[in-house]
């Protein structure tokens, strides 16, 4: 009680609070992943159902609820793309990846070119080249998102970048699958 916490911790609303409050981390894109990991361990050590297996049903149920909530928040904070989408959401910008597919024409053109390249790829070198391109794109997009969320906050612009990022991740996934398929034959 002597140390003032970062955010006010109110026991009755803690379960409903957002992921950053739950983990006592500042609400920003750049976070210390080691700190996140350590908080997660500390919280699970306290809340995990294994700690309550000899308790009454009420305690067991609560522990399951808490432990689930902690893991849910951890998974979201751990993954940069999901963390970015969540920050957009907290700032009132919904990603709606399924329905909102509007992208700049230049971005779509470039995507199409690379998809064509993927269809034609046959050698390990072909796949390496495509993978290198998509990895670079992801890094650039991540940096742009970090800037738009932390340094010069513009949640709408960040949201557009997050959608592009999702596109790229999906593309990266198809590259991996295609490579496994082609090169294992």
């Amino acid at each position, binding site marked *: 009680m002597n*140390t003032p916490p970062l955010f006010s911790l109110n*026991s009755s609303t803690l379960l409903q609070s957002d992921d950053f409050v739950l983990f*006592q981390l500042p609400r920003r894109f750049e976070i210390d992943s080691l700190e996140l990991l350590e*908080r997660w*361990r500390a919280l699970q050590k*306290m*809340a995990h159902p294994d700690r309550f297996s000899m308790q009454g049903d009420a305690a067991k149920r609560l522990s399951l609820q808490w432990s*689930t909530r902690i893991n*849910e928040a951890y998974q979201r904070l751990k993954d940069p793309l999901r963390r970015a989408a969540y920050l957009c959401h907290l700032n009132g910008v919904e990603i709606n990846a399924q329905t909102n597919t509007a992208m700049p024409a230049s971005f779509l053109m470039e995507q199409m070119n690379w998809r064509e390249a993927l269809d034609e790829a046959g050698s390990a070198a072909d796949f390496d080249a495509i993978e290198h391109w998509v990895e670079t794109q992801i890094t650039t997009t991540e940096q742009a998102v970090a800037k738009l969320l932390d340094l010069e906050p513009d949640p709408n612009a960040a949201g557009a970048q997050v959608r592009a990022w999702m596109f790229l991740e999906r593309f990266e996934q198809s590259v991996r699958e295609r490579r496994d398929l082609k090169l294992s034959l």
Partner: protein
Amino acid sequence: MALLQISEPGRAPDPHQRRIAIGIDLGTTHSLVATMMHGVAECLPDHEGRVMLPSVVQYLPKGKRAIGHNASHAASADPQNTVTSVKRLMGRTLADLPHAQRWSVALVDLPGMVGIQTLEGVKTPVEVSAELLATLRQRAEESLDDDITGAVITVPAYFDDAQRQATKDAAKLAGLEVLRLINEPTAAAIAYGLDQASEGLFAVYDLGGGTFDISILRLSQGVFEVLATGGDSALGGDDYDHGLSEWVLERVGLRLDTASDKSLMLKTSRAVKERLSVDRSARFIVQLSSGTIDLEVRREAFEAITQHLTQKTLQACERALKDAKLKSKDLNGVVMVGGSTRMPQIQKSAEAWFGQAPLNNLNPDEVVALGAAIQANQLVGNHTEGDLLLLDVTPLSLGIETMGGLVERIVPRNQTVPTAMAQDFTTYQDGQTALMLHVLQGERDLVSDCRSLARFELRGIPPMAAGAAKIRVTFTIDADGLLSVQAQELSTKVQAQIQVKPSYGLSDDQIAKMLQEGFETAEVDMKTRALKEAQVNADRILMATQNALSQDGAILSVQEKTEIERLMLDLKRASCEDSAALIEERIDLLAKGTEAFAAERMNQGILQALRGQHIESLK
């Protein structure tokens, strides 16, 4: 041990009272039970000093059965009524089994799960497994001369929801309180005491009789975190036996015509395989009804015919490492588990693939049961040196069917459990008032390539234009890895939910009925059993409440505290009488009366954990 300790309100019962917990490795070929004795985990032997119970059940006339070694001896004499490798049938339908003709027992197609035709009628794999579990429970009760508070049962990490649920049902049927299902490789990691020895990244390679698992774990600060898991729940030592058997039959030009030939052939294959782990060659001698086989088998030949199986395990290792975003050089150690890892080719292949000599210092047959016992002991609250926490993951992705027979993934594989994940869907027809949800498990995109876990319907959606309804589907996975699914239309809050009792669906009523029947044949009074269970339950809850009061009673008002103490006293009184129903009723009352207290304690604990961390990080 006294079933109930009556103590004055406000005074804790003896805190040093030990609760007995056991760990069970329910294996394809052998099963074992272990417990902690004097701070060390030990496997419990039978009357003849043998710790391994062959996972074999023979059904005999008049409701009798032989289990373990006795049944094993009968396997070739009475193969139609002797069930071996039942683990391979758990949670499986006839259509799931690619080699149904290999079985010496007759398999029948039951809704949801395969059945086994015996002279005592059709048995489910759950019932057969329950016989094995009950045998081990009895062994533990006799050797420890005490009641068992609960058990941890191990399952292959790669077991899907149906297989896990079936295992849990079998334990219930065997009268065991399941503290937790834990994954076999994780149990092995605990037994290896990796927590004390070192911190870092480890791979556990577990090749058993019928299943293969690979798990990648990170051990740090008393937390065992599973990073990724993979494997094949239908690949094990049995397959090496079959491979050898088929090769031999082809060489000598014989066929297997009778059930007893099948069983003899397999037994010989297994013996020769084991021989070849020691010697460079072995003689394959067996007398079949169609002729005699006498063939010299060299180790190199055996390794060549089974090489594709070994290769399959390494592919799974590669994928697991990739999922964990690691390279084999990042690993601090590779632990070998399961009897099948005794084969020299497995040791060699693993060493070559991982680029380091695997760890073998514990008995690969016992290590899983030992780890389960350590975890069980911890779960019942017996004090242990290490303050260990296991964080395991889902082995397979989970999703639902969408238009065009495709699977939309909701929970990707390798998520730490317990977990909950949600996704929104919509209707595709104008005025659609119901939605069929088909829950699937697996890594493939097509519904037909995944395992169907359940189907349920969300009804009562108000008529809306196509695409206007917003239906949130939430998947919740508990700490045993078992799934429940909930669907809700968000604008109207119409709800539907299902506890995914996989399609074979043994309902609680069916289990109760099977339990009753089981006890009738075993001539145990069901009522006595129920009363005893209720009393043990009451004891556990009273003790837990008492501990909670002594630790955190200060957060309660005087009235609240008096009320809880009154409820406890009521339960204690009920416990001395012989009505299970009354005890259950008072347990419920106490649970309700302590709900708010439990919630507040939980919140305080979380706050404490956060503050502790926060202060740490400010330093």
